């Protein structure tokens, strides 16, 4: 670099370097978008997002496990005693009234994935027990013993008939 170059020129050069770097950086980031997005669920996976279930075969006290988005969903036909026990408390770790977790008190629909590490809890006694790390849930799918931080998720669903529900759409 020669002596007679003025500071104004270096300023301009620095600006050009920064501008080029910024534009190049934005370009690289934009080029990453399709690659990152390609790892998200594809259209056929998204198409599985809705499951229709016929409830007529589930007797009171019975449980059916159906697959929704590849995840197990527990559908419980609760007995009056189970409903009574569930409405009596609000849960301990993640308090929530039973009425907010069901649309009809005799039908409980919850995603059967432990909110701790994603294992499938087993139906044991009243409620469920997860054998991976010992979490327990009551008959409303609310966590009663950790390490799980949250209640079993209630998926979006709605009744299309008295004994038919669609899971995946509220």
């Amino acid at each position, binding site marked *: 670099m020669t002596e007679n170059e003025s500071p104004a020129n270096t300023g301009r050069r620095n600006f050009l370097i920064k501008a080029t770097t910024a534009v190049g950086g934005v370009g690289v980031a934009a080029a990453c978008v399709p690659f*990152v997005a390609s*790892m*998200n*669920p*594809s259209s056929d*996976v998204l198409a599985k997002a809705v499951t229709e279930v016929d409830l007529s075969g589930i007797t009171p006290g019975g449980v059916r*496990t159906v*697959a929704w*988005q*590849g*995840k*197990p969903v527990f559908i419980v036909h609760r007995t009056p005693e189970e409903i009574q026990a569930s409405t009596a408390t609000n849960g301990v770790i993640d308090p929530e009234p039973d009425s907010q977790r069901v649309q009809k008190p005799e039908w409980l629909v919850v995603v059967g994935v432990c909110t*701790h*590490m*994603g*294992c*499938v*809890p*087993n139906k044991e006694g009243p409620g469920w027990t*997860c*054998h*991976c*790390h*010992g979490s327990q849930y009551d008959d409303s799918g609310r966590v009663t013993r*950790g*390490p799980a*931080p949250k209640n079993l998720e209630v998926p979006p669903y709605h009744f299309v008939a008295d004994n038919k529900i669609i899971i995946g759409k509220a």
Partner: protein
Amino acid sequence: MPGRIIKWIDQRFPLTSFVKHELTDYPTPRNLSYWWNFGFLAGVVLMLQVVTGIFLAMHYRADISLSFDSIQHIMREVNYGWLLRYMHATGASAFFFVIFVHMARTLYYGSYRAPRELLWWTGQGLLLLLMATAFMGYLLPWGQMSYWGATVITNLFQATPFFGDQIVIWLRGDYTVGDATLTRFFALHYLFPFIIIGAVVIHLVALHTVKSSNPSGIDLAAKDNIPFHPYFTIKDLYGLGWFLIVYSVFVFFLPDSLIEPANNIPANPMQTPNHIVPEWYFLPFYAILRSVPNLVGGVVAMGLSVMMFAFMPFLDRSRIPGGAHYRPIFKIQFYLFLLDMLVLGYVGYTPPTNQTLLIGQIATLCYFGSFLLIPFISRIEERWLVRRGLPPAVIALMESEALTIEQRRLKHRRRGEQA
């Protein structure tokens, strides 16, 4: 004729000088014990894994409806398929075994200290790459343990603030571990070993810059170095012989001892096995994850437990050279740490009960304590050792080290004044 060919190459590529500089004449401390064999062994296992893996990939199908059966196909129908698979599965355990010994040696002899911090940190990066590769490879047989192991570990990313759920779905490419997950894990499981090879080259460049440490912890004068070849090529090969004997015993006689029986059941997304355990080499870290009664806390603790090793150059400020060799308290600490790892491994293996939970929590505290107390213990220990009187050779070494540090500082200051 061969001489002429080499001469022709040497005019165009530094073949002879490279081999001479990095291998045949590479100066190596004469007092290296067999604990210094394990870096070489790790390189051999890496090559074994790459070769067996490539040949397995010729017969494997990455598709959830085919992959479990393709493993049976490899085991029953492919010529020597059983051998390739058992070598690869046993090789994963062997890899972790030699790496753990390699790390324990570095910790014991204080080889992570100046000037070898970068060497240690590249090694830490290699450990993470190895763990990621092993984890992704474990999904490929699509057994129950594969499936639920991958489910639990990808679920850990739920601890990410704000985007937790989206990141888990992005990693899996599905709402659960599925076809998309299997194919990407296979692609990355094939890619990562080559990244590891690149990282090993960086590790070796760092090693050949600072040279090997040695059991005395004292940087030896030039007269105490001997050429790598033939002295250490033969020592490494002898160690390799012993390694291959043990490895072969596992491959030919105990191949199933390292494979969880539950992984011989095809993956079932609707049913978690009652007792899920990771592979033995992840057990201590898994125990730490389970010991924290909170998802985010557990994930952070587990991540930190793997990364704690990287902090060693900062934590250990003792000026006494030679690692545990001249430091009795550090030596006790080292063995207690190994014991703690075994306790954590046991806790990680057993199903969670209140009792094992308590043991796990105490062992987790001991794990982090044995790192975080090092700065204080090493200072007290240094003072005590100096008062008790050090061997003259060690004092001379400490003085010369202090002098070089002082000189470096002076040089730095002088350069600062000039600028």
